[in-house]
Each structure stands twice: as C-alpha cells, then as structure tokens.
C-alpha cells in the first residue's frame, strides 16, 4: 500500500481541473510556468491575458486571471490596445506558431518595434495543432505534415522562421529568448527566461518575447518521449536555445 502525500502543488492561480491537452503536449507545463511566474512576481491580481486561437485558446480555463480572446494572429495588436488602455496592468499574450509567425507576423513585428510593454509567450511546436497537423511557418525542412506529405520543401515553402532571432533585431524588443521544456535543466532555464520576459514589462523596458520549443506528439506521430527526444536532438540544432536580447547586452 502506498501512502499518498502531496509534495508538489500548483500555484493558486491555476484552476484545479483536468486539462484538455493531448498526452505529452507541453502546453500544460508552459501554462504552469506562466502561472508560477505570475504568482511569484505578484501579478495575478493585475494581469490581463490575451488569448489566441488553436490549442492554446483555452488558457483562460486554466488561469484565474482576466482574459480577452483575439482573432487568429492578432493577439499582439489586441494586447497593444489593452496595455495602452490599462498601462498599470500586466499584459501577456499566449500564442502558437501558426498564430504568431504566419497570420500574425505583422502584428508581432510592429508591436515589438513599437516597444509595447507586454510579454509574449510563443509556443513553437512546428505544426498547426488544433487544425489537424498542417504545415506551420516553423515546420522543419523535411518534416511531414498533412499539407506537406512529402516533407517541407525549402524551395517551395521557404525555411522555418526563427522568431526569437528576428524579433531580437528590433529596437523595441527588450528581451528575446528561446527555451524548451523537454528536460529538467531546460525547464529550469525556461522558467528564468520567462521571468525576465515578464520583468522587462514591469520595468517598462519594452516587449518581452519568449519562444518555447514545444512537443506535439499527436501531430508528430510520436510518443511523448520520442517527441521530447526530437526537441533535444533535431529542433535545437535549427532553433538554438538561448537569449537573443537582454536589456544590458544584445546577444549571449
């Protein structure tokens, strides 16, 4: 007989409910990291979350904060309106790669360039998840999806977009980093980076951007462990982890 003893609890801002995400999906972990950061930085009461579309649309079901939904890709523009309306509130967007890097590319680039004081959580799993596994702007060359069954072809489709690097080049971006949650060491670094992406907003420095390399075992047709291995072996070689912009120096 096992004696149950709780040694690990969720931050209070997390709603105690089963999540709808597929087994092995990293959204749940990233949600938790967001919840931990909001709690630790004392932001829960002042936060306004800007949701997006796709698998992440239900973030408001899991975090007890004020939230508004935005159309596909437009979260950075909606967050701009929210922050300009309520500069004293903490504002973050939570967006996937299809949302932010394809249809919403213009909105994120211009929000970053204006130095909007918002934090952007970008979940890059190299595929459109909720719509059934189609090619995303971050799909790896050679990766098979339902709209590139033979694998992404760079000549036809272009190369995967590197958002953390691209946004780091803009004057208004105060912090830009790419992290992963496929292992405990990576997870710890991800938490630190997420805090910084939040802190630059609190300090009024500009836009904080954090890109999570994230697993989508369902659409990658892998087990959760295989998906984690793909991140560490394959994805990080094209999407290097690291900080691309910080307030004090431009690149690590």
């Amino acid at each position, binding site marked *: 007989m096992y004696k149950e003893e709780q040694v690990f609890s969720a931050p209070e801002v997390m709603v105690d409910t089963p999540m709808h995400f597929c087994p092995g999906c990293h959204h749940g972990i990233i949600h938790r990291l967001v919840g931990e950061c909001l709690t630790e930085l004392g932001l829960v009461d002042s936060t306004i979350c800007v949701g997006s579309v796709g698998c992440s649309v239900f973030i*408001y079901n899991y975090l007890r904060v*004020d939230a508004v*939904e935005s159309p596909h890709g437009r979260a950075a*523009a*909606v967050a701009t*309106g*929210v922050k300009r*309306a309520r500069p004293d509130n903490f504002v973050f967007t939570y967006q996937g790669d299809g949302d932010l890097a394809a249809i919403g590319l*213009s909105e994120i680039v*211009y929000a970053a360039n204006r130095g909007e004081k918002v934090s952007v959580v970008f979940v890059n799993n190299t595929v459109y998840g909720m719509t059934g596994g189609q090619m995303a702007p971050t799909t790896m060359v050679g990766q098979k999806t339902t709209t590139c069954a033979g694998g992404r072809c760079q000549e036809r489709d272009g190369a995967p977009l590197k958002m953390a690097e691209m946004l780091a080049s803009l004057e208004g971006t105060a912090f830009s980093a790419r992290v992963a949650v496929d292992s405990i060491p990576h997870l710890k670094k991800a938490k630190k980076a997420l805090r910084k992406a939040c802190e630059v907003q609190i300090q009024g420095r500009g836009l904080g951007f954090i890109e999570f390399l994230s697993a989508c075992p369902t659409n990658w047709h892998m087990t959760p462990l295989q998906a984690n291995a793909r991140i560490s072996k394959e994805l990080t070689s094209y999407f290097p982890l690291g900080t691309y912009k910080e307030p004090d120096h431009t690149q690590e």
Partner: protein
Amino acid sequence: MRSERILVKGNEAIAMGAMAAGCECYFAYPITPQSDIPEYLSTALVEAGGEFIQAESEIAASNMLLGAAACGKRAMTSSSSPGISLKQEAISYMAGSDLPAVIVNICRGGPGLGSIDPSQGDYYQATRGGGHGDYRTLVLAPSTCQEAYDATIEAFDLAFRYRNPIMILGDAILGQMKEPIHPWKTRGRPAGEAEEWSLSGAKGREPRLLKSLYLSEGALAGHHAHLVEKYRTMQDEARGEHVWTEDADLVVVAYGSIARIAKSTVRTLRAEGYRVGLFRPVTLYPFPSPDLAGLAARGKRFVTVEHNTGQMVDDVRLAIRRHADSELLTVYPGVLPNPEDFEHPIRRLMDTENQPEEARHV
C-alpha cells in the same frame, strides 16, 4: 446658451465629436477620404492625455480597438471602404464578445480599390454586419457636419448602452465638406460606465473573460438568443427625418449626403406644385421601417435614391411590402450628382402613373 459656430470639415466634426464624447483611445491607418480624422486626433487626443496609435494596418488598428474596448475604454477607429473590409474580422469579434466600440466609415467608391469619390456602396456591408457570422452593428448616417458631430457623441453612448460596435456611415461629400457647426459640451462619460464587465485585473473579484468562442453543445445558440434580444431592444433607436411627407403623393427615400441633395430637388419640385416629400433614414440599422410602413399604409408612392447600384431599396421594399413598392433611382459611384439631376426622373415619375420599369440611374 449656444456655443460659438466654427467652420469645419465633416471629418473634423467627427474627430471633435469623439473628443467631446470623452474618447480615450483611437487607433487607425490612413486612407482617403477620412485621413483628417487621424490627423486631428494625433494632436488633440494626445494633448488630452489619450492614446493615439497610427497602426501598421487597418487589421491591427481594429484589433487594438478590440483590446481597448475590452478594458471598457471609450475607443474609436475610422477608415474608408477597403479599410473597413479589413476591420470587419475584429468588428465581428467585438460583436461576438459584447464589446462597445465606435467605427467610422467615410465610404468611397468600390468594389475593390474603386475610387476616392463619394459613394454609398457600403450600405449592405454596414447594415448586414459586414463580417462573418450573425450579428448587427447599429449604424448612424449623418448628412451634415453638425449631425456628424452629434452622431459621434451619440455613437459612444449607444456603444456602451448596448455593449456593441456602432458604425457611423458617411461618405466623401460629408467628410470633405466644410460648414459651420455648434460644438457643444457633453456631460462627460457616465461614472462607472463599464465597471461591471470590463477587464482591469481580477483584484478583489472573480476573473472576467470576454470571448466569442462557444464550443459546448447549445452554448452558441444561447449566445445568439442573447444577441437577438439585444438587437430587438435596439429597434427603439430606429429613426428618420420626415420632410413634407404628410401630404406627399410621392416620398423620396434617401440617406446621408444624397438625402441632402435630394432634399434640394424636393424643394424645387414643391415650388412647382408637386406633392413630393422626403424621408431620410437617420439610423440604417435598425432601419426605420415603422415610419415607412406608416407612410405606405396611407397610400404614398416611393422612390429610393441611392449613390450606389441599389442596396437600401431592399430595406425600403421590406418595410412597405404590405402596401406598396418602391421605384429605384441610383447614381453610380464615380459621379457626383446635382439636385437638378434628380428633377427629371422624379418629375417623370409623378407625371405618369407609376409603371414598374427597370431601375433608372443618373
């Protein structure tokens, strides 16, 4: 006491009306023939401590509007036809999320890039929702610079009364025309206007969620029931202006700038002894159907005059369908009509029995 009169463009009157209404946030992208609005507000709103952003696109501007609206701010965007098409996605989301916002469309000729000439080609788009899904925006159609000022102030009040996007539909004639107006001071924004529902951080209360997504079985139907009830109560706002309709045999139905031109025609024909009147819808949605139905029940004949290829005539015909039909007289976008242009076709209608025939155009 009346304030002094000032000489302004219709676009400036709208911008000044927004300031008088307590507009706190304005987001837009330049497009002819409405750019005087962002030009005016880029200074006036900023000096008043408000937020002005020239967005990277109409799409971004309307989504910034959505964000500010979710925070309960008095917020506005303005554009012209092609720009309004780009804004429609966010307008649909705002309608679906019960968010108050003011959207100004200084309509130009379309479809596509069309021209920068005045036009009423966006009537369907304005009154049928315009974006995806079942929804309506309340639409005000001013015809003078003073009305443009007044309508903008009213639009903010209506937006918060119904928690719904409100559209001001004008055209290049109204936007670019200069005439004297009496700017008047409003009582200011009602205290606590949006406190019950807007986002401000969940301190001391349950978190709030503003959304348009309803996936669970029956939930969207319930939301539509709520929206339909909202649109039903909105019907109380329907109104129009009557000019010599009481004893008229023929009623000209026209709105906005074209109504103003048609009014001159009606005045000329009256002087000649023709029993002709004008009915000008002031709200295009809700359409003032009861007024028109009342006139139709009393045996009037109708001609709808529009600066497009025939759109509002559908609403006129729906309103009067139990008693009468409406002739259609259109001015194609790309032509600026004079009052004289309407005289001959209207006189001809009145001199002959009302024989249904193909739509006429000037």
